[in-house]
Protein backbone atom coordinates (compact mmCIF):
# COMPACT_ATOMS: atom_id res chain seq x y z
CA UNK A 1 0.00 0.00 0.00
CA UNK A 2 1.16 3.50 -0.69
CA UNK A 3 2.57 5.44 2.16
CA UNK A 4 0.14 7.85 3.70
CA UNK A 5 0.90 11.46 3.14
CA UNK A 6 2.34 12.87 6.30
CA UNK A 7 3.49 16.36 5.47
CA UNK A 8 0.44 18.52 5.37
CA UNK A 9 1.83 21.44 3.42
CA UNK A 10 -1.33 23.18 2.34
CA UNK A 11 -0.87 24.24 -1.23
CA UNK A 12 -4.08 26.20 -1.09
CA UNK A 13 -2.52 29.54 -0.36
CA UNK A 14 -0.40 29.59 -3.48
CA UNK A 15 -3.34 28.37 -5.50
CA UNK A 16 -5.58 31.09 -4.16
CA UNK A 17 -2.94 33.78 -4.67
CA UNK A 18 -2.47 32.60 -8.24
CA UNK A 19 -6.19 33.24 -8.81
CA UNK A 20 -6.21 36.58 -6.98
CA UNK A 21 -3.19 37.88 -8.85
CA UNK A 22 -4.76 36.66 -12.07
CA UNK A 23 -7.88 38.66 -11.36
CA UNK A 24 -5.77 41.71 -10.58
CA UNK A 25 -3.58 41.21 -13.63
CA UNK A 26 -6.51 41.12 -15.99
CA UNK A 27 -7.30 44.67 -15.06
CA UNK A 28 -3.82 46.16 -14.97
CA UNK A 29 -2.49 44.28 -17.94
CA UNK A 30 -5.37 45.50 -20.03
CA UNK A 31 -4.79 49.00 -18.75
CA UNK A 32 -1.06 48.74 -19.40
CA UNK A 33 -1.44 47.48 -22.94
CA UNK A 34 -4.07 50.01 -23.73
CA UNK A 35 -2.10 52.89 -22.35
CA UNK A 36 1.20 52.04 -24.00
CA UNK A 37 0.05 50.76 -27.33
CA UNK A 38 -3.18 52.50 -28.09
CA UNK A 39 -3.29 55.75 -26.15
CA UNK A 40 0.45 56.29 -26.49
CA UNK A 41 1.96 54.39 -29.33
CA UNK A 42 4.93 52.38 -28.21
CA UNK A 43 7.10 53.94 -30.88
CA UNK A 44 6.48 57.35 -29.52
CA UNK A 45 7.50 56.55 -26.01
CA UNK A 46 10.07 58.92 -24.69
CA UNK A 47 11.66 59.12 -21.34
CA UNK A 48 9.89 62.33 -20.57
CA UNK A 49 6.50 60.73 -21.00
CA UNK A 50 7.44 57.80 -18.89
CA UNK A 51 8.76 60.04 -16.20
CA UNK A 52 5.61 62.11 -16.24
CA UNK A 53 3.54 59.03 -15.64
CA UNK A 54 5.84 57.58 -13.03
CA UNK A 55 5.86 60.70 -11.00
CA UNK A 56 2.26 60.07 -10.22
CA UNK A 57 2.41 58.07 -7.00
CA UNK A 58 -0.74 56.17 -7.82
CA UNK A 59 0.64 55.09 -11.17
CA UNK A 60 3.98 54.23 -9.61
CA UNK A 61 2.38 52.06 -6.97
CA UNK A 62 0.15 50.39 -9.52
CA UNK A 63 3.15 49.53 -11.65
CA UNK A 64 5.07 48.16 -8.70
CA UNK A 65 2.12 46.08 -7.65
CA UNK A 66 1.71 45.02 -11.26
CA UNK A 67 5.29 43.88 -11.25
CA UNK A 68 5.06 42.04 -7.97
CA UNK A 69 1.80 40.37 -8.89
CA UNK A 70 3.01 39.51 -12.36
CA UNK A 71 6.23 38.06 -11.06
CA UNK A 72 4.56 36.01 -8.42
CA UNK A 73 1.91 34.82 -10.81
CA UNK A 74 4.33 33.98 -13.56
CA UNK A 75 7.00 32.36 -11.43
CA UNK A 76 4.53 30.42 -9.33
CA UNK A 77 2.92 29.29 -12.55
CA UNK A 78 6.23 28.04 -13.87
CA UNK A 79 6.97 26.29 -10.59
CA UNK A 80 3.59 24.58 -10.62
CA UNK A 81 4.04 23.50 -14.18
CA UNK A 82 7.31 21.83 -13.22
CA UNK A 83 5.76 20.04 -10.26
CA UNK A 84 3.00 18.86 -12.55
CA UNK A 85 5.68 17.19 -14.57
CA UNK A 86 6.85 15.29 -11.55
CA UNK A 87 9.66 17.56 -10.32
CA UNK A 88 10.62 16.26 -6.92
CA UNK A 89 13.26 15.97 -4.22
CA UNK A 90 16.47 18.01 -4.29
CA UNK A 91 15.81 19.11 -7.83
CA UNK A 92 12.59 20.67 -6.69
CA UNK A 93 14.31 22.54 -3.89
CA UNK A 94 17.00 23.86 -6.20
CA UNK A 95 14.47 25.00 -8.76
CA UNK A 96 12.43 26.70 -6.08
CA UNK A 97 15.49 28.52 -4.78
CA UNK A 98 16.52 29.65 -8.24
CA UNK A 99 13.02 30.86 -9.01
CA UNK A 100 12.72 32.77 -5.75
CA UNK A 101 16.08 34.46 -6.26
CA UNK A 102 15.24 35.33 -9.85
CA UNK A 103 11.90 36.77 -8.79
CA UNK A 104 13.39 38.83 -6.02
CA UNK A 105 16.07 40.10 -8.35
CA UNK A 106 13.48 40.95 -10.97
CA UNK A 107 11.31 42.82 -8.51
CA UNK A 108 14.26 44.68 -7.00
CA UNK A 109 15.56 45.63 -10.41
CA UNK A 110 12.10 46.66 -11.53
CA UNK A 111 11.48 48.89 -8.54
CA UNK A 112 14.93 50.41 -8.94
CA UNK A 113 14.20 51.17 -12.57
CA UNK A 114 10.81 52.61 -11.73
CA UNK A 115 12.20 54.93 -9.07
CA UNK A 116 14.84 56.06 -11.54
CA UNK A 117 12.15 56.76 -14.06
CA UNK A 118 10.22 58.78 -11.56
CA UNK A 119 13.42 60.65 -10.98
CA UNK A 120 13.45 59.92 -7.28
CA UNK A 121 16.98 58.56 -7.13
Amino acid at each position, binding site marked *: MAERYSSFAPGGTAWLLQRIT*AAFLVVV*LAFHFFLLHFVNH*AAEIEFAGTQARMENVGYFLTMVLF*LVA*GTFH*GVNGVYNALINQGLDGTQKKVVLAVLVIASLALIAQGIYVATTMAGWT
Partner: protein
Amino acid sequence: MSQSYNRGLIEDFGRWKEFSAGMWAWIFHKFTGWMLIGYLFTHIAVLSSSLTGPEAYTNTIGGLESLFIVRVLEVGLLAVAVFHILNGLRLLMVDLGVGLEAQDKSFYASLVLTAIITVASVPTFLDGVTL
Protein backbone atom coordinates in the same frame (compact mmCIF):
# COMPACT_ATOMS: atom_id res chain seq x y z
CA MET B 1 8.06 10.40 -14.55
CA SER B 2 5.38 7.91 -15.20
CA GLN B 3 6.37 4.45 -16.13
CA SER B 4 4.92 3.33 -19.32
CA TYR B 5 5.97 0.55 -21.54
CA ASN B 6 7.69 1.92 -24.58
CA ARG B 7 5.14 1.46 -27.27
CA GLY B 8 7.43 2.91 -29.86
CA LEU B 9 5.82 4.95 -32.56
CA ILE B 10 2.37 4.38 -31.20
CA GLU B 11 3.10 6.26 -28.02
CA ASP B 12 5.32 8.97 -29.50
CA PHE B 13 3.24 10.26 -32.35
CA GLY B 14 -0.39 10.61 -32.91
CA ARG B 15 -1.42 11.14 -29.33
CA TRP B 16 -1.95 14.86 -29.87
CA LYS B 17 -4.63 14.03 -32.37
CA GLU B 18 -6.53 12.55 -29.50
CA PHE B 19 -6.40 15.66 -27.36
CA SER B 20 -9.64 17.18 -26.19
CA ALA B 21 -10.53 20.84 -25.77
CA GLY B 22 -9.50 20.90 -22.13
CA MET B 23 -6.09 19.50 -22.96
CA TRP B 24 -5.46 22.02 -25.72
CA ALA B 25 -6.52 24.81 -23.42
CA TRP B 26 -4.04 23.55 -20.86
CA ILE B 27 -1.19 23.38 -23.39
CA PHE B 28 -1.94 26.83 -24.80
CA HIS B 29 -2.31 28.40 -21.40
CA LYS B 30 0.98 26.94 -20.33
CA PHE B 31 2.71 28.06 -23.49
CA THR B 32 1.34 31.59 -23.29
CA GLY B 33 2.11 31.82 -19.57
CA TRP B 34 5.73 30.94 -20.15
CA MET B 35 5.95 33.46 -22.97
CA LEU B 36 4.57 36.14 -20.73
CA ILE B 37 6.93 35.53 -17.86
CA GLY B 38 9.79 35.36 -20.33
CA TYR B 39 8.66 38.66 -21.71
CA LEU B 40 8.40 40.20 -18.26
CA PHE B 41 12.08 39.49 -17.63
CA THR B 42 13.07 40.89 -21.03
CA HIS B 43 10.83 43.86 -20.55
CA ILE B 44 12.46 44.86 -17.28
CA ALA B 45 15.86 44.38 -18.90
CA VAL B 46 14.93 46.74 -21.72
CA LEU B 47 13.49 49.28 -19.33
CA SER B 48 16.72 49.12 -17.37
CA SER B 49 18.28 51.17 -20.13
CA SER B 50 16.74 54.13 -18.35
CA LEU B 51 19.32 53.68 -15.63
CA THR B 52 22.00 54.86 -18.07
CA GLY B 53 20.12 58.01 -18.84
CA PRO B 54 16.99 59.38 -20.50
CA GLU B 55 18.49 59.38 -24.00
CA ALA B 56 19.60 55.81 -23.81
CA TYR B 57 16.07 54.88 -22.79
CA THR B 58 14.35 56.82 -25.51
CA ASN B 59 16.81 55.57 -28.12
CA THR B 60 16.55 51.99 -27.08
CA ILE B 61 12.79 52.02 -27.18
CA GLY B 62 12.65 54.03 -30.34
CA GLY B 63 15.30 51.87 -31.95
CA LEU B 64 13.50 48.72 -31.14
CA GLU B 65 10.15 50.05 -32.20
CA SER B 66 11.51 51.05 -35.58
CA LEU B 67 12.26 47.43 -36.35
CA PHE B 68 9.54 45.64 -38.25
CA ILE B 69 10.35 42.39 -36.57
CA VAL B 70 9.78 43.91 -33.14
CA ARG B 71 6.38 45.13 -34.24
CA VAL B 72 5.47 41.67 -35.43
CA LEU B 73 6.68 40.23 -32.15
CA GLU B 74 4.53 42.74 -30.34
CA VAL B 75 1.48 41.56 -32.21
CA GLY B 76 2.45 38.07 -31.21
CA LEU B 77 2.78 39.18 -27.62
CA LEU B 78 -0.64 40.74 -27.76
CA ALA B 79 -2.10 37.54 -29.09
CA VAL B 80 -0.39 35.58 -26.38
CA ALA B 81 -1.51 37.97 -23.69
CA VAL B 82 -5.07 38.15 -24.93
CA PHE B 83 -5.40 34.41 -25.11
CA HIS B 84 -3.87 34.01 -21.67
CA ILE B 85 -6.24 36.58 -20.27
CA LEU B 86 -9.34 35.16 -21.89
CA ASN B 87 -8.51 31.59 -21.06
CA GLY B 88 -7.41 32.76 -17.63
CA LEU B 89 -10.88 34.18 -17.16
CA ARG B 90 -12.29 30.90 -18.35
CA LEU B 91 -10.18 29.09 -15.78
CA LEU B 92 -11.31 31.45 -13.07
CA MET B 93 -14.90 30.64 -13.97
CA VAL B 94 -14.11 26.95 -13.84
CA ASP B 95 -12.53 27.43 -10.44
CA LEU B 96 -15.69 29.05 -9.23
CA GLY B 97 -17.67 26.16 -10.63
CA VAL B 98 -19.50 28.33 -13.14
CA GLY B 99 -20.43 26.97 -16.55
CA LEU B 100 -18.49 23.72 -16.35
CA GLU B 101 -20.63 22.17 -19.05
CA ALA B 102 -19.59 24.86 -21.46
CA GLN B 103 -15.88 24.58 -20.75
CA ASP B 104 -15.07 23.41 -24.27
CA LYS B 105 -17.20 26.11 -25.88
CA SER B 106 -15.59 28.82 -23.78
CA PHE B 107 -12.18 27.58 -24.88
CA TYR B 108 -13.14 27.85 -28.52
CA ALA B 109 -14.60 31.28 -27.80
CA SER B 110 -11.27 32.38 -26.28
CA LEU B 111 -9.48 31.29 -29.42
CA VAL B 112 -11.84 33.10 -31.73
CA LEU B 113 -11.84 36.26 -29.66
CA THR B 114 -8.07 36.24 -29.47
CA ALA B 115 -7.88 35.99 -33.24
CA ILE B 116 -10.33 38.84 -33.72
CA ILE B 117 -8.63 41.15 -31.26
CA THR B 118 -5.22 40.38 -32.67
CA VAL B 119 -6.23 41.01 -36.25
CA ALA B 120 -8.06 44.17 -35.29
CA SER B 121 -5.01 45.57 -33.56
CA VAL B 122 -2.59 44.93 -36.39
CA PRO B 123 -3.02 48.39 -37.96
CA THR B 124 -2.30 50.12 -34.68
CA PHE B 125 0.75 48.01 -34.03
CA LEU B 126 2.24 48.27 -37.49
CA ASP B 127 1.52 51.99 -37.77
CA GLY B 128 4.47 53.95 -38.97
CA VAL B 129 6.98 51.24 -39.42
CA THR B 130 8.61 50.36 -42.69
CA LEU B 131 10.14 47.14 -43.77
